[in-house]
């Protein structure tokens, strides 16, 4: 049914640094070059970096500034190798093979120089590993071990030199631990196109800085946390609420509930030595109960609710624009569940805020319902509820601290917690996650659908929305149009996707929205055009395309996720990250969807129940408007 339109735009992996046009030689498989690496002769495509060529031969060259998601920097100089006949060593990551050469990766000169690089970095790296959050998951620590560092040859200091920047709700920066690999810069500039971080100063004064050296809370940072995920050391980290949550758990007066999003469940296993893509949802429920959480809820429930609210909003917008001819209606409608994306839009395209769906994100909808509906039903004073959200995302920490997020009369969500942080709590509690038995989610929100699960992957929100819209409009099941209700065209890892869905038949308007639209006749013969973008660099492309009147400007609905891969690649997910790891997490998510009994948001019995019992004036009604919708702030790029 759907037709996927191919567009010539970038992929998730940043091809080259946008900022510097720093040239990299492109690989050319049509022109193989013969090289010898440590005596092994092999053929590689012209332009293959020595690093890749060596890996193909099973030779591991150590790296620090290299990251699979980023353009080549060649700055740490750890990956040194010898090329016969050349007087100096080369950085294997930054040296493309363009002619037959003989490479030696393990010579005394190479070992000594690499060791010197490690020694030099350690001489400037302040502090000790045991007080660092990256202890046991640090690339520098690994290098020190590999290169046999037993003492600090060129000195080492434990005296702090710079103050930790804790100004932002999401990301803190401890520059004493920075090794100037510049991955964060490349992430923020190339991958995310936000551009908060840059190298400032020269020589030994060089450091990573922000605009005018302002604190991170005071610049255009969108809190996506992608820089944290790619930092090799403990220099960047998320604000960890773990201790506060333990305090709440230990306080008998407090009723501590946690909602868990689908992506952390697909990633959490990695923190316990499991393969990426091993789902641990039901084991996690048990672990959380053992940690002392009073209730464990499934964020998928409000993901379903988001679909209903956002979908209704879309139908209303389309109706107003197409039937009533209201030109003031902002289209395409943009999704609003990724708080990093929301802040990106507020900073860089404040004029487009009207396009943003007013529906809150699933996390915040859940927060509001817990302190209203749930508190009422269970007879608990909302004052005593501590609401925690397990998210793959660092921006969620910022989101729950937005001043407008208090519609319940309290702070709707008290703490946003990342996958990594919860993993540590579980470790602290002495719980061996993989060994846990299964437990179901708690009522009354237990019932969730596969639609909620796939929110975690790029394209998932769109797929859920389409499953819902197709059924509501045609009166037939999605399976009539897509096998197993898998809407494949919106899936995948391309940075941008554009899909057209012709509406060839319509049915009766379902009861739940009957009061909003009289019939579907106006949609018959129309083409629903939807778009998907993930990573704000791709969001940027879409926005510019819309401004220029390109194909995306003709869309009706566009899904935006701030993080590459969607939530499963969120800034709070386990480190490391790579295209391969994200793909595996996505597989876990789609597998969980397939295993769900109910896979469409509007069929979720809990959703029907909440509209029946609590949000009685229906989707986008007055009550839902008050509790489940929000507003935005035109921030602009200039901040005092």
């Amino acid at each position: 049914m759907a037709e996927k339109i191919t567009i010539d735009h970038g992929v998730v992996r940043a091809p080259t640094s946008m900022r510097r046009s720093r040239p990299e030689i492109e690989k050319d498989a049509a022109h193989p070059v013969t090289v010898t690496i440590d005596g092994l002769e092999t053929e590689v495509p012209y332009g293959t970096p020595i690093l890749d060529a060596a890996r193909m031969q099973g030779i591991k060259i150590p790296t620090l500034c290299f990251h699979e998601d980023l353009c080549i920097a060649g700055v740490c100089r750890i990956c040194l190798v010898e090329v016969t006949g050349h007087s100096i060593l080369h950085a294997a990551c930054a040296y493309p093979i363009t002619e037959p050469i003989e490479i030696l990766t393990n010579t005394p000169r190479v070992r000594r120089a690499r060791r010197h690089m490690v020694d030099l970095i350690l001489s400037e790296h302040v502090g000790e590993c045991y007080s660092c959050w990256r202890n046991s998951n640090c690339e520098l620590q690994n290098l020190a071990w590999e290169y046999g560092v037993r003492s600090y040859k060129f000195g080492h200091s434990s005296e702090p030199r710079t103050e930790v920047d804790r100004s932002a709700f999401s990301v803190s920066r401890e520059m004493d631990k920075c090794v100037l690999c510049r991955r964060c810069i490349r992430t923020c500039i190339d991958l995310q196109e936000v551009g908060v971080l840059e190298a400032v100063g020269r020589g030994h004064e060089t450091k990573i800085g922000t605009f005018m050296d302002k604190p991170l809370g005071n610049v255009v940072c969108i809190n996506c946390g992608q820089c944290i995920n790619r930092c090799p050391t403990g220099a960047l980290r998320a604000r960890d609420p773990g201790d506060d949550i333990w305090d709440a758990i230990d306080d008998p007066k407090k009723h501590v509930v946690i909602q868990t999003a689908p992506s952390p469940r697909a990633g959490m296993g990695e923190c316990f030595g499991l393969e990426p893509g091993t789902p641990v949802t039901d084991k996690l429920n048990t672990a959380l109960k053992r940690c002392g959480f009073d209730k464990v809820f499934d964020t998928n429930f409000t993901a379903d609710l988001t679909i209903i609210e956002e979908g209704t909003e879309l139908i209303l917008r389309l109706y107003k624009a197409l039937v009533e001819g209201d030109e003031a209606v902002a289209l395409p409608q943009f999704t609003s569940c990724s708080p990093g994306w929301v802040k990106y839009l507020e900073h860089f395209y404040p004029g487009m805020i009207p396009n943003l769906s007013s529906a809150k994100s699933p996390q915040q909808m859940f927060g509001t319902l817990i302190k209203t509906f749930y508190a009422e039903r269970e007879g608990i004073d909302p004052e005593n509820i501590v609401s925690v959200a397990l998210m793959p995302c660092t921006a969620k920490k910022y989101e729950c601290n937005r001043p407008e997020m208090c519609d319940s009369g309290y702070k709707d969500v008290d703490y946003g917690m990342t996958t990594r942080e919860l993993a540590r709590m579980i470790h602290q509690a002495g719980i061996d996650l993989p060994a846990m038995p299964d437990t179901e989610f708690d009522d009354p929100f237990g019932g969730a659908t596969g639609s909620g699960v796939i929110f975690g992957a790029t394209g998932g929100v769109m797929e859920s929305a389409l499953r819902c819209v197709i059924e509501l409009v045609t009166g037939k099941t999605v399976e009539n149009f897509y096998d197993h209700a898998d809407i494949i065209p919106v899936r995948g890892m391309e940075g941008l996707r554009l899909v057209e869905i012709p509406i060839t038949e319509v049915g009766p308007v379902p009861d739940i929205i009957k009061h909003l639209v009289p019939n579907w006749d106006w949609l018959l013969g129309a083409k629903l055009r939807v778009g998907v973008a993930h990573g704000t660099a791709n969001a940027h492309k879409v926005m510019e395309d819309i401004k220029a009147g390109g194909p995306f400007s003709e869309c009706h609905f566009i899904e935006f996720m701030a993080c590459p891969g969607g939530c499963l690649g969120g800034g709070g997910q386990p480190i490391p990250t790579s295209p391969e790891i994200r793909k595996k997490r996505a597989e876990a998510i789609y597998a969980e969807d397939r295993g769900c009994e109910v896979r469409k948001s509007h069929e979720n019995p809990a959703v029907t129940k909440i509209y029946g019992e609590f949000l009685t004036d229906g989707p986008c009604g007055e009550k839902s408007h008050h509790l489940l919708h929000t507003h935005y702030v035109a921030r602009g790029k200039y901040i005092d």
Partner: protein
Amino acid sequence: MIKSFVDKKLTFRDMDPDVSLKAAADMSSAEIIETVSASSLRGRGGAGFPTGAKWKFCSRAEGDQKYVVCNADEGEPGTFKDRVILTRFPHLVFAGMSIAARAVGATRGLLYLRGEYTYLREGLMAALQKRRDDGLLGDEIMGVDGFEFDIEIRMGSGAYVCGEETALIESLEGHRGEPRNRPPFTADTGMNAMPSVVNNVETFAWAAAIMEKGPEWFRVVGTDQSTGFKLFSVSGDIDRPGVYELPLGITVQELLAAVGGENAKAAVIGGASGRVVSQAEFNRKVCYEDVPTGGAVIVFGPGRDMLDVAENFLEFMCEESCGQCTPCRLGNTKLLECVRMLQEGTCSAAYLREIVELGESIHLASKCGLGQSSGNIFLSIVENFREEIMGRALGAVEPATLRS
């Protein structure tokens, strides 16, 4: 202002830039490159890359818009000869750039002028305007169909590393002045990722001279691998500091004699990225195959403390490193620390050995020429003046306080 004592002998005085350009205008690209190659002219900026070969690479590279860039950043401590050329012979330099443009097929020229030379800018702009008025820049240069070229002046802002050609290009493109990874090389992926030729001011001037006089004329002096005359900026403890034109292959001894520095203790040849030559080596030749230089010669008299020399140059390197790569950014600070330890007599022989090894690693591991040569002066002082610098360590302190 330093006087040029041999000014009257400067070859450039007798050159006619218009004749050079005319000669090139009458030649094909290949013929120009052949002529320059036949002269064996090598880059006068320091690295000494054969100019003809550089132009040939660039002429072969494919690109819609090629560039000719003149490196007038002259940031090497102790170098001031490009300033003299730009002041006195700007037309020769511009003619050289135009010749290069014809050779490689470039239509745009850029002159990257050292920030401290802002006062030269106006004169250079006037010279450029005159050339446009005279039909020596613009479309149909000298009436030759398709010979199109113009030159813009861009200012540097005082970073030494921006003299390194890829950092210079980054700076020209409006970015932080940091060297690029190589390959790809500037000749095929330079300015705006297009094929570009970057040459020193003096290189362009000599190229123009060669077009007028022919390659044989140029090859008459010098050695096999280092042909022609070269301008030297000579300063320090000598009687007659200034800019000299001397043949390549001259010995240090002869050079010192020419400038009144016979009783020198040592000379730094090649500026901050050069090396220290001690008395014992004064019979060595100044040329690419022996002691190379971009033209800076700094002479130290008998009273100079070699540790002060090392300290001074290393301070420069620590500040002027662009800061991107580990060995150069951090390594040089360790070398400097070591010099200070030597000054205080707290450096053990073992630690010095470690630091010398580190210096070698800095050379091997750094991304660009700055880091690769930043330790040269220090290392050559340790090698040649060991007695002098270790003397302080032995007498002054208890071995127990030595760092090892």
